[in-house]
């Protein structure tokens, strides 16, 4: 035991110096905790928090941008589709209008032709009637002149009419 104590003395182990150094170490620990570790840790934590936050924000913004881009794309697609539809509709309408106009024109023309045809028919009928009347009168006059006597005008007319009717029927038939 004494040998150990002597050795410790030779090495310079000294109770009060040792305790002073222990106290020094604890003082250093306390002061460094106060002035170095606490603020630095807080700062490091805060910084890592900030970085985390800003990275999250970046991620969020990126997502948002992608979302917006997609939306815009979709909108453009929709618009182009709509535009195409409008064009198609316009083309269809134009076609319809054209066809309608064509049809109308054709109808008009047809009706015009029909009218003209009926007019011509009527005119012809009139002309035939007139011709017939005149022809009957002429025939009567001619016959009067031939037999030089007044024929029973009425009776003759009826006769001629009948003949003409027959001929007309024949002709038509």
């Amino acid at each position: 035991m004494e040998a150990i104590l002597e050795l410790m003395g030779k090495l310079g182990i000294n109770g009060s110096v040792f305790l002073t150094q222990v106290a020094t170490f604890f003082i250093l620990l306390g002061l460094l905790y106060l002035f170095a570790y606490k603020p630095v840790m807080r700062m490091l934590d805060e910084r890592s928090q900030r970085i985390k936050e800003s990275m999250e924000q970046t991620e969020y913004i990126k997502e948002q941008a992608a979302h917006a881009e997609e939306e815009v794309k979709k909108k453009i697609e929709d618009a182009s589709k709509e535009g195409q539809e409008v064009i198609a509709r316009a083309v269809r309408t134009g076609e319809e209008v054209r066809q309608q106009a064509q049809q109308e024109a054709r109808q008009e023309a047809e009706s015009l032709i029909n009218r003209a045809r009926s007019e011509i028919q009527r005119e012809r009928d009139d002309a035939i009637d007139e011709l017939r009347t005149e022809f009957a009168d002429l025939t009567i006059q001619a016959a009067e002149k031939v037999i030089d006597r007044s024929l029973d005008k009425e009776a003759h007319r009826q006769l001629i009419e009948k003949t003409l009717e027959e001929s007309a029927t024949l002709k038509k038939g």
Partner: protein
Amino acid sequence: MPRRGILIGFSAIVGLLTILGLIVGSLGQGIFGDIGLPDWLTVPEPHITVPADVVFHIFGLPITNSIIAAWITVVFLVVLSFVFTRRMKIVPGRLQAAFEFLLGWLYDLCCSVAGEKDGRRFFPIVTTIFLFVGFNAWLGLIPGYGSITIETHEHAVHLIRSANTDINTPLAIAIVAVFFIQFFGLRTLGRHYMVKFVNMGGFFHGLGQVLRGKIGAGISALVAGVIEAFVGFIELVLQFIPIISFTFRLFGNMTAGEILLLVVAFLIPFIMAVPFYGLELLIGFIQAIIFGGLTLVFLVLAVASHDEAQEH
């Protein structure tokens, strides 16, 4: 070219000093004999004392030169941290970034060894040990340490002496480290921490079996219990071995370094000591990282639960 001129001038000075050191130093005097050098050029024989010298007393407490050196380290570190952390900014300046880099490096080391949660708890103690040991060593290389003498009423003593070279300082740090190791172990594991060392469960179990008449099984359980108790005792002793290894590793390295520098400066003064100063800078760093790192490892071992330790 001015740069080349500076280089040549510098080399010439270095060469001259080397030659002068060879002549003036003890080695040169041994070879060439006394060639009548002026007194101020000869280097006195170094006087090495293992115990630190008492410079003065405060309230009867002896204040040794190593205590003064330790206080200088404390003041240096505290002022440094105060200056660097006084106006902390989220985007750091150069000084703040350097300081944060040092602490952040140690913090990452703690976290990588002990995990995020424990690393945070161990960080202050490990870092303080690292900084105290490291800066005691590095500041000890500054001129003035071990060269300024002061007259006390007994004899002339050095005013400041590198704190690590006084065995009381490594011993104090080692005991504080072991104290924290036991403290964290107890606080984390509670009763289970004690079971590591006082493991009598198997023994009493075997004893109970013997008393109940199961002699065969009882005796084997008894033997296993005795072995377990003995292993626990060894574990307990092992907890205090680091005090000795920590103390003498640091004390030995630092004292040897100091003596090496003194001897080199005595044999060949001036330039030849410079590489050894570089070596001592490196050794100071290594000792600091060993002391802090081993403390960290022991802390991790102390808070690892017994079951978990068996699993690994």
